[in-house]
């Protein structure tokens, strides 16, 4: 009796969030997947019937190149973000409580400015007529015909700039919980600072690193504004293609097919992470009563 009422209680409590997920996540996702399987007429309207043509078009070399570029830009910027975030977090947790708070606020403050405006600011800084390029040319760091804007490196730079806090925050949270007496134990057992960092600290904050990786990689995959504004045509990512298909090409099914590709990459990644967690939790069970 009590068990039943508890189950009912849990259902009532979880209903709003389930409803939210259904309405705003499940239904749109499934619709996108379904639409991507419909053919389109020449005006881009969704027609009845099912076809895999939209996906076949993705296999064309031009498009494969864009998918490939999207993946590597996201991967590289994620790597850079995490590699920068770990030492920042390591330094932050060693600070006094008040300094720690200050640093946290400084990391969060940029969010108070609209994202578009921040990207515009980069555009202003890196502008061909801007002061930065001027100085760099005068100091002979770049040649006079080099543009700072509209190349793949700027896209990487601005993506890293935008998503770095998303890597720092979860990694900081994990590092803050990390028990630093473990580092002392490692030194005591003969480990150098370097060894202790890689063998004890990094595995100790692995949950933060995975969270940070996903927090950067997933939004980076869907980048649209950044390559659009600072990247130029040679830097198109899947996000730009989707926008182009919807706004210019007016081909909703094909746009959906592109979106589905991103979705599947993300779902695949989350699936991997879930499998990892499950395996990790059960890995040692079979040996519990067994031999070495």
């Amino acid at each position: 009796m009590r068990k039943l009422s508890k189950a009912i209680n849990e259902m009532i409590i979880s209903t709003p969030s389930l409803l939210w997920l259904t309405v705003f996540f499940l239904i749109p996702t499934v619709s996108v997947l379904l639409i991507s399987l419909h053919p389109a007429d020449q005006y881009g309207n969704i027609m009845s019937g099912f076809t895999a043509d939209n996906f076949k078009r993705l296999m064309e070399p031009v498009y494969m190149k864009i998918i490939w570029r999207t993946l590597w830009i996201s991967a590289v910027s994620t790597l850079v973000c995490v590699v920068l975030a770990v030492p920042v977090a390591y330094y932050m947790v060693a600070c006094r409580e008040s300094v720690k708070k200050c640093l946290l606020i400084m990391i969060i403050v940029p969010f108070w400015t609209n994202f578009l405006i921040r990207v515009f600011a980069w555009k202003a800084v890196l502008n061909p007529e801007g002061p930065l390029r001027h100085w760099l040319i005068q100091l002979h760091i770049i040649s006079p015909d080099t543009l700072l804007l509209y190349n793949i490196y700027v896209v990487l730079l601005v993506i890293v700039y935008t998503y770095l806090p998303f890597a720092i925050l979860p990694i900081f949270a994990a590092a803050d919980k990390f028990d630093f007496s473990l580092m002392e134990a490692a030194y005591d057992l003969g480990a150098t600072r370097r060894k202790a960092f890689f063998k004890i600290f990094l595995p100790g904050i692995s949950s933060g690193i995975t969270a940070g990786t996903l927090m950067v990689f997933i939004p980076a995959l869907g980048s649209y504004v950044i390559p659009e504004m600072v990247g130029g045509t040679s830097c198109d990512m899947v996000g730009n293609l989707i926008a182009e298909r919807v706004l210019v090409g007016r081909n909703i099914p094909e746009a959906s097919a592109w979106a589905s590709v991103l979705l599947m990459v993300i779902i695949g990644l989350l699936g991997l992470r879930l499998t990892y967690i499950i395996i990790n939790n059960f890995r040692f069970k079979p040996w519990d009563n067994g031999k070495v």
Partner: protein
Amino acid sequence: MAGFLSFENISKKFGRQTVLSDVSFSVEKGKIFSLLGPSGCGKTTLLRICAGLESPDSGRVILDGKDITDLVPNDRPVNTVFQNYALFPHMTIWENIAFGPRVDKRPKQEIASEVEKYLEMIQMTSHAYKKPAQLSGGMRQRVALARALINHPQVLLLDEPLAALDLKLRQRMLVELDELHDKIGITFVYVTHDQSEAMSISDDVAVMNRGIIEQMGPPAEIYEAPKSSFVAAFIGDTNFFDGTVTEITDNDYSRVQLENMGNQQMLIFNDRRLNAGDGVHVSIRPEKIDISAEPPATDRKKNILKGHVEDIIYMGNSTKFWIRVGRQLISVQKQHSAFLLDQKPIRFWLAWHADNGYILDNYQDADRSLLPINVTEPQKPEKGHKQK
């Protein structure tokens, strides 16, 4: 200073707080040396200085004739069993034990066989592939021990290794630890706040209080001949008497007039230079006092007092008597005294041999509060201060 491991004039401050002031002692090779003291007295800090995890403001640490004060932790031939064990949670027991040899880059084959050996020693072979979180407290403690010992340290530092365990397990682990020490024969520095642990396991004990060592010596000496009121009260139970020397009878004894106890003078053992008129403080352990319902036989070196019962507490293995003599409450602890319980006399004779009273070198009133029950009558307020 002789000895295998020596601390020479170690001082340490954290901010304005002095945690260690001019601490010196040395540990003999192959012995178990205990640092005993209440929590916050600086034991862990001293151990961390030895491990290299903290550096002293002044003073040196000498190990086997070499000055190791400025060595980094990983270059010191000492290993630590930490208070919370500090096992690596993401590694299996096997990997935890193998950590030292691995960073030492010993050959793989050798590491494997060594780890097996130590797993066997702590009887954890069947748990080799568990994570620390899956083990009980006692098992973790053994893993921490194996993880330290596999590096063949010259000195093993143990920081309250048994504090996290329950009483029964603590007693068993203490015996295991002692046997282990006999087997491997390396030097142990054992930190604890538990006097019975320190007493039972150590060859030598240093009693610490507020960053200084109050007394150092074999456990029996510390218990039987405490030099300070702190040591007397912290280790075991005791009675404190305040008095004045009235007469030096010969080289070894003096007569002392005790306050609060009428005109009676006590004969007290005395190995210091004292003069008549000196104020002294005396400690006598409750179990060193004989108690009887009949007057005891007299003896030249025996002090005999008459008092009446305030309270009797039966404790199973012994009985505790609170006896009032004059204005002083004296605690007495005796075994086999059921007859005294049956008879319920109200008067008792107390007797103790002059050798069992110790004149303290160093006395502080505050130390009386360390006793389970404060055995001195509270001072009556003076007349002028009396409130309505």
